[in-house]
């Protein structure tokens, strides 16, 4: 895998800038969190990286190794090895669980153990049990797992996850966290936008704190406890809970 680098990224909606000058890197196999409160630019950053129609990117570069991704169509970016788990899960409601995995399946890259239907089913036994079920009938937690499983079937080198804990019960959040930690342990890089501190602690090696569209601070996971001020300012976590 190559180093993933975002440099000077500026993007916004209908002429209103949301992020301005975002710099971040994800080293091969590293798990990095983009932490921050609502509206600080986490989702905008990930959407801009994926090359989606909105936000409009006004400056900056997104590189994966030597390959410039900025300006490319989303399917080219996905095929470059970026898996995407969007905010709100966005599962295909009229597809079954098995169809979800089949429609996006791409061949593995040389030197990496491929994510196949069997391997994904092993990591997500709940989904394996519901292979023939329409995705729209799954619970929120199952839909989140499906969104992750679907991204893995593209055989990515780096997975972008946008608030995977959103709207889930704490117990399910822990399960989703375990799964993300497991895929990180398997060698897949992770860039996770998140405001749930337990999830950040569970999966991230390093944390960028976003504040009003810029990177306000950057710490390693080991340093998190020493920065109660950052946790309070950017995640609203009181010192007693940190």
């Amino acid at each position, binding site marked *: 895998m190559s180093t993933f680098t975002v440099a000077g990224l500026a993007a916004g909606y209908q002429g209103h800038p949301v992020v301005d000058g975002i710099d971040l890197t994800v080293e091969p196999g590293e798990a990095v969190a983009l932490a921050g409160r609502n509206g600080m630019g986490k989702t905008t950053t990930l959407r801009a990286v*994926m090359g*989606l*129609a909105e936000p409009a990117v006004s400056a900056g570069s997104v590189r994966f190794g030597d390959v410039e991704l900025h300006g490319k*169509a*989303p*399917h080219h*970016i*996905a*095929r470059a090895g970026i*898996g*995407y788990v*969007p905010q709100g899960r*966005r599962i*295909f*409601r*009229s*597809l079954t669980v098995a*169809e*979800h995995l*089949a*429609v*996006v399946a*791409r061949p593995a890259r040389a030197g990496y153990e491929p994510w196949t239907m069997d391997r994904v089913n092993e990591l997500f036994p709940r989904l394996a049990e519901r292979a023939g079920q329409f995705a729209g009938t799954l619970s929120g937690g199952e839909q989140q797992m499906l969104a992750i499983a*679907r*991204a893995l079937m*593209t055989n990515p080198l780096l997975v972008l996850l946008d608030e995977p804990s959103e709207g889930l019960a704490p117990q399910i959040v822990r399960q989703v966290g375990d799964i993300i930690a497991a895929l990180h342990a398997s060698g897949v890089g992770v860039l996770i936008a998140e405001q749930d501190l337990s999830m950040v602690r569970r999966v991230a090696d390093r944390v960028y704190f976003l504040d009003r569209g810029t990177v306000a601070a950057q710490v390693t996971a080991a340093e998190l406890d020493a920065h109660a001020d950052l946790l309070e300012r950017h995640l609203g976590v009181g010192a007693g809970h940190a």
Partner: protein
Amino acid sequence: MSGGELLLTTFNGLSFAGLLFLVASGFTLIFSLMGVLNLAHGSFYLWGGYLGLVTLGATGSWVLALLAGALGVALGGGVLERLVFRRVRGIELSEVLLSVGISLVLADLALAQFGGDSLTIAPPAALAGSVELGGLVVPRFRLAVIVAAVLVMIGLAVLLRRTRVGAIIRAGVDDEEMLDALGVNVRRVAAAVFVLGALLAGASGVVGGVFFGVYPGADAEMLLFALVVVVVGGLGSLQGAVVGSVVVGLVYSFGVALAPDLLYFVLFGPMLLVLVLRPRGILGGRL
């Protein structure tokens, strides 16, 4: 109306429904994935008829005529998608206006090339004449159209429900952007669907040429029928196209038989009712 007339009118309605389904299924497929209300679909139908007519005259082969109508229009549709529709993708007003413009150009080209007379396509020899069906004498060709429509319906259902391509199309209908972000080139899928829709319109033009002849204005008439079918059944829904075709086919057939003076009311009345009671159509929104 006697029992025999009732049965015959029902049969005629169903055979017309078969033709309507061939036209409307392509129309609704294109709309479901691309969001394009392709108002040039009637012109695709008309040109399918003319291409079939010319090929039949030149070769005498009905199979070649059907292939020429279907493949010729599919090719033309593919070129139009690549050169015109793709440029305005997602800009709904431009898409609709462009499709209107294209339909006008295609209609005028057809008029210049083939003149204003109504030209009839003879049915294939094997399907000429009548056949007895449970005591009812019915035209063989009309019976074949019902069978063909059912086969196309099954084929489309299998394509959409049982194949990976079909699952990709359904996923694209659900969330096109997300599908793109997962590495699927949705534009290519959409182009293929557009070509498939054009192919069906072209083929139905040849079939419709046997029913009604090929003439200037057939494009607008058939487009109107297709619109009524998909509005009644539900825009973007294949099952809706089936239901809509049967409803409109039967209503038209009985309208012609019972109240020809009120035909347009009989045809648009149910559409109005459906729009009031179920604005998305009887089965709207489900591919």
